[in-house]
């Protein structure tokens, strides 16, 4: 299939399907769908070559709202279905959509492998730290103590960090953002798309019904400056209202600490410069938790490598050149045969 640019540039709205959106009013998913439509428009994506594959959950309803190809599959299996789509036709631009339960609980295994294999797809994980669609049970990303219908006295198991998980899976592109950050999200999607191989983007999403405000300690307007640090390759990891705070390695230890420039003899030169190709650093940044640390946003890790789908087709080409296909009749006659007259 040939990828052709559409003749006229499509506006974000042209990527919206005619289907009525069925998320709760005020759900963070609305903002994400808008951001993706904007990103596609910015990139001039061709709807006929764009496929959204999702699992099950509120987040996973996403494909129905896009005027592209879409496959709403079964709970947790979107990465596996997407793998087949991409391997069948590598020219397609494939996006995988799912929630925290979808991709880290029932489908954790597939998320691991789509990332490890580095299949050229974008994986967007809408993390609301809750099971939305099944009415509010805690999820594998819920903080200890989360009260929910299934944990009335608070959850007692420790959560997983989506980005730390992705890094542990050897993902080569790991980024994080917030649903409402419309300024940044489309650009981040574009970077994810432009990265060859599996691109993992965690989008912190507010579930207004079952987990409202889980992220407000660092996403509310007043808290953003002190609660988030934006990772930009080659730039110092500064944050705070005046960019007065920063991250540095604790001298003599393999450990991050928050410092204030001008205090205790700290100068800007002491602040860590973000190196997006450094996986151990990325692991430390991705794992930072409020309130003691800001939450890392932006491209936390990027170190592109050959994609699985490309390697598969390279091998097919190589093998075909070495021993081209012969008619099946001849193939079946290869080896030891005998003739009966």
């Amino acid at each position, binding site marked *: 299939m040939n990828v052709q640019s559409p003749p006229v540039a499509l506006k974000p709205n042209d990527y919206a399907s005619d289907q009525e959106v069925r998320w709760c009013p005020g759900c963070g998913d609305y903002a994400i769908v808008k951001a993706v439509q904007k990103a596609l428009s910015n990139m001039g994506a061709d709807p006929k070559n764009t496929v959204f594959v999702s699992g099950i959950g509120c987040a996973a309803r996403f494909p129905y709202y896009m005027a592209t190809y879409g496959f709403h599959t079964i709970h947790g299996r979107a990465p596996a279905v997407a793998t*087949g789509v991409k391997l069948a036709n590598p020219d397609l631009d494939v996006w995988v959509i799912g929630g925290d339960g979808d991709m880290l609980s029932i489908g954790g295994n597939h998320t691991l492998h789509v990332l490890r294999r580095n299949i050229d797809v974008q994986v967007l994980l809408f993390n609301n730290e809750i099971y939305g669609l099944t009415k509010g049970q805690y999820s594998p990303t819920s903080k200890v103590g989360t009260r929910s219908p299934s944990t009335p006295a608070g959850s007692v198991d420790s959560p997983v960090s989506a980005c730390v998980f992705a890094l542990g899976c050897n993902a080569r592109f790991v980024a994080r953002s917030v649903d409402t950050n419309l300024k940044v999200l489309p650009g981040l999607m574009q970077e994810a798309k432009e990265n060859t191989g599996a691109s993992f983007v965690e989008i912190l999403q507010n579930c207004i019904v079952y987990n409202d405000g889980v992220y407000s300690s660092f996403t509310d307007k007043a808290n953003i400056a002190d609660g988030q640090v934006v990772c930009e390759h080659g730039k110092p990891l500064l944050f705070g209202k005046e960019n007065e705070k920063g991250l540095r390695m604790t001298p003599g230890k393999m450990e991050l600490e928050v410092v204030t420039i001008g205090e205790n003899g700290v100068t800007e030169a002491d602040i860590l410069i973000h190196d997006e190709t450094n996986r151990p650093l990325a692991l430390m940044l991705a794992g930072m938790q409020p309130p003691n640390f800001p939450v890392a946003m932006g491209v936390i890790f990027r170190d592109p490598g050959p994609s699985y789908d490309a390697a598969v087709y390279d091998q097919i080409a190589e093998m075909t050149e070495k021993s081209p296909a012969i008619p099946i009749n001849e193939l079946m006659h290869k080896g030891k045969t005998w003739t009966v007259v």
Partner: protein
Amino acid sequence: MPTNLIGTMATQLKETDESGREILDSVVIRFAGDSGDGMQLTGTQFTQSTALMGNDLSTFPDFPAEIRAPVGTTYGVSAFQINFASHAIKTPGDAPDVLVAMNPAALKVHLKDLVPGGTLILNLGAFNARNIEKAGYKESPLEDNTLDSYRVIEIDISKMTLAAVEHIDVTQKEALRAKNLWTLGLMCWMYDRDRQPTIDWLNQRFGKLPLIAEANIAALNAGHAFGETAELPSEISTYVVPKAKVEPGIYRAVTGVETTCWGLLTGAQKAGLNIFFGSYPITPASPLLHSLSNLKAYGVVTFQAEDEISAVCSALGASYAGSLGITSSSGPGVALKSEALGLAVVTELPLIIVNFQRAGPSTGLPTKTEQSDLYQSVYGRNGDTPMPVIAASTASDCYDCAIEAVRLATKYMTPVMFLNEGFLANAAEPWKLPDTDDVEPFPVEFASETEGFHPYLRDEKTLARNWAIPGTEGLEHRIGGIEKDYDSGNISYDSDNHHKMTKVRAQKILGIADDIPEQEVVSGNNSGKMVVVGWGSTFGAIEQATRRCQEDGLDVSHIHIRYIWPLARNLGELLKGFDKILVPEMNNGQLVTLLRSEYLVPAESLAQITGQPFKVSDLEREIRSRMED
């Protein structure tokens, strides 16, 4: 003539050929030894030579689940049986005429099957006190009367092998490993088989280890020479089994895995699609993954998934994108796939699931054969989730079934369950090579018309929905597991619509009955006293058993069902023409339940759940006794 009389006559009238070899109609040989003794290899090589001699043959490899069970134990015994004949045969044979036992454990496990008066070849070298005890014998079976009713040939094969390779620079361990080839050499002498195919194979296999190849070839030749020169007991003679009279053509020996692989490839070519094969290793299905992985030049993409669920889901994703998605597994793996099969049914995408059945439930007996996934195939999913199910009867039939599975999947936009069996996967038989040109092409046409398009637009006749693949301008659409509106393909929670869609999905699959052959009787009359109804790999044993009864004047017919779902249009009427319906199955009675529920007929079950194929004699006895009931 009663069968026992034929038997006696055969032993009395010894015919010989010009070189003095006794001419036999058919022989059953079983090679048995420790898992590490190379019995499967010995059997496979003997099979190759036998096939090239022009005999009809059927084999039954029977090996333990453990790769290397503790040496000398009964549960570590691996066996390979071959039945070859100068006439057409259909089963690997009920009981061996010749048993090769490489150690006491092999003797312990298999002696009970050897026909009275049968030939027993023992490797004396392995009959030491420790091995005898490990096998569970209190006393050496060589010294009491255990072996009295057999013709016993005791040879210290281990010692002979060591002597044969003495001049070659290999370790003692490597030398001893060649004892299976020594044995093969002896059997080649006894049955006049050509050693050259084995020599060629060894040279190729051990191309990088020429000394190992040399040692094995030396052992092979020494075993043969031993037969020619040694003073063997007088009643042991050499034999010849003349070529079988079969249809002219070019033949090769094949297993069900090979034919399945070529059938899928042929089918895909006839449909004009590339194969995407997603699979996760499991006995006995893995060999299909291995075979297809070698067909990259045919555009075949093979994907070893992280689990069974990913295997089927990736295949379904590939079908969505316009490939022919195929997945394979065995019962436990198919169980894991069942949710995704529901998705395939509701999204109405072509998909083929090859189930190499093995003994269940759960892990069951992983290396033993069974036909116990019929319920799982026909009924085993949530919701009303119909799909066609076809079952292969022989290794040759796997080729045709595979093509048929592709045809049905693409023509009706549906997943198709292709029931294979561990027994068919491993067993070898001669196959008259088909000509792919004899298969009518059935090219797939993807949707391209934008006018009036929606993803669930159906063909009026087949009820198949149109297949629009990503990359097609103007046909962008969304599908998924939520019920779809009949008229637009959009999601719909409407109750009447769900009723209608469920009916349409069922009707589409039932309609396939108009597109498959009417049920025929394999042998016997179209109505009468009794019909024996079978499916899958029991075909040969049932046919032989019913034939014997027919030759004896009994009014019994044989029906073999290939299309398990939907069943052939006329099957119900046909069954109702018989007073008795007997359904032998290697399960606890599954097809029998299906037939009873579909046709309200008093079908009776004949269940054998031993992990072993039916014996013709057992079936025959059972048919006779049930006829008298």
